[in-house]
């Protein structure tokens, strides 16, 4: 299973490296979202700063929808999904591999966006370790639930509109917990972030488990 996961993850990341769709489209999209939030709330720093953590994670969430759609658009061309099914790879491995690839892309995106909020909103970056841990756990959680919904909506005629409707409400706890953990990290207050980090971890584990179990039946008839 882990070997298959590594193979699929490597394949997806290679496709991304060669096509650069994420870099050329998703990252600029996220930057545009940050700019638009600035226009909506700015230019006063005092109104932007308290909202910065929330805006950052909203931008991540919206970009995650695109990353997930991309992850399955890759498979729909040239009957890639049939290829995956015929390849004899473990479905759980395919799920974990695709999830890991999406999570890795989200992590890169978050790194870029962190610079973005630091520059555009003037956020003083601090508590780097907590911020990094939040990014890691949140990315894994978003990728896990996102890849399941990605395959749920893949191959359907209305997938572009269906995926955000399914994905965004489920990701609400991630948005909440990640925002609060970031706020705690940025303000350097106490150990509140432990609650939020553990919530993110629970979310990631629960949905990774559901995805691992459910991916087989989902893939076999998609």
């Amino acid at each position, binding site marked *: 299973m882990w070997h298959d996961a590594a193979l699929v993850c490597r394949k997806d990341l290679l496709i991304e490296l060669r096509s650069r769709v994420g870099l050329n489209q998703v990252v600029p999209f996220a930057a545009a979202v940050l700019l638009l939030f600035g226009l909506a709330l700015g230019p006063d720093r005092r109104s932007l700063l308290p909202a910065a953590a929330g805006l950052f994670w909203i931008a991540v969430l919206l970009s995650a929808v695109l990353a997930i759609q991309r992850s399955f658009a890759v498979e729909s061309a040239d009957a890639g999904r049939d290829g995956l099914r015929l390849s004899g790879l473990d479905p759980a491995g395919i799920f974990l591999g695709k999830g890991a690839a999406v999570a890795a892309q989200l992590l890169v995106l978050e790194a870029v966006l962190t610079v973005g909020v630091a520059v555009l909103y003037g956020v003083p970056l601090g508590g780097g370790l907590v911020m990094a841990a939040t990014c890691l756990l949140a990315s894994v959680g978003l990728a896990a*639930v996102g890849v*399941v*919904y990605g395959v*749920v*909506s893949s*191959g*359907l*005629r*209305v997938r572009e509109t*269906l995926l955000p*409707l*399914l994905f965004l*409400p*489920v990701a*609400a*706890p991630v948005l*909440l*917990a990640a925002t*609060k953990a970031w706020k705690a990290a940025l303000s350097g207050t106490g150990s*509140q972030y432990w*609650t*939020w980090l553990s*919530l993110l971890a*629970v*979310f990631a584990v*629960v*949905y990774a488990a*559901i995805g691992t179990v*459910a991916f087989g*039946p*989902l893939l076999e*008839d*998609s």
Partner: protein
Amino acid sequence: MSTVSLPPRTKPAVGREPAGGRLGGRRSPSGRADVAVRALGVLALTGIVATCWLGLFVTPEAVNFGNLVRLLYIHPPMAWVAFLAYGFALATSLLYLWPRTRDPRLDRLAGASAEVGVVFTGLTLVTGSIWGRTTWGVWWTWDPLLTTTALLFVLYVGYLALRRVPGDRETVAKRAAIAAVIAFVDVPIVYFSVSWWRSLHQAPTVDLAGRHLYVHGLMAWTLLLGFASFSLAWAWLMVHRYRLATLRDREADEGLEVAIAERRAEGLP
């Protein structure tokens, strides 16, 4: 040339359901089952009317809440029915996902129950909002229960949207079942995260749990009647939605069969 002389080899094209016609229920909803459903409906509606009558005219005002307490006879029953419906949808979805108990009837039941659940979640939100406006002065507050209910509403609207997607019925059913599981698992996570969110950052302005209302005597019976009759209404509505879904599936199956038969008949001399 009538379509009666349909060659038997077109039979396998009918559909994926084993013994399709029988699973689809009765030829027409009539007979004893129909009488039972009608009785159920009459019982549910009578119960709801009685609850409203008792709640509005017979029961006394509450000490702390005045006339507003009358909303309490329908609001908790509605919320209860919503959770009952989602729980039922989850159970049928899990059974559908289990290969040994996979049956299109379970899928239709899950869909019918979730539909009724969404309606009652909407009603819960509306009645809760009215309650909030008059007691706390706001239409909305970020209380864990309220926020979770609102997210539930959106989650299951998404689930229903997924169910309506055109495509192979079995594929969509399987995906919808998994979406139902994912949505249901999200509910406790949302609830806990919102409670922490509230408790860590500001003292809860609204304590839904400790509303210090003592329900007794006739009020308790009215509330109980409300729970019972709204639950009956759930069952009644669900039976109807289930029948509609069955008929819709059968129409899709037999429509194809009839169309093929007609085309064949055209070709014959």
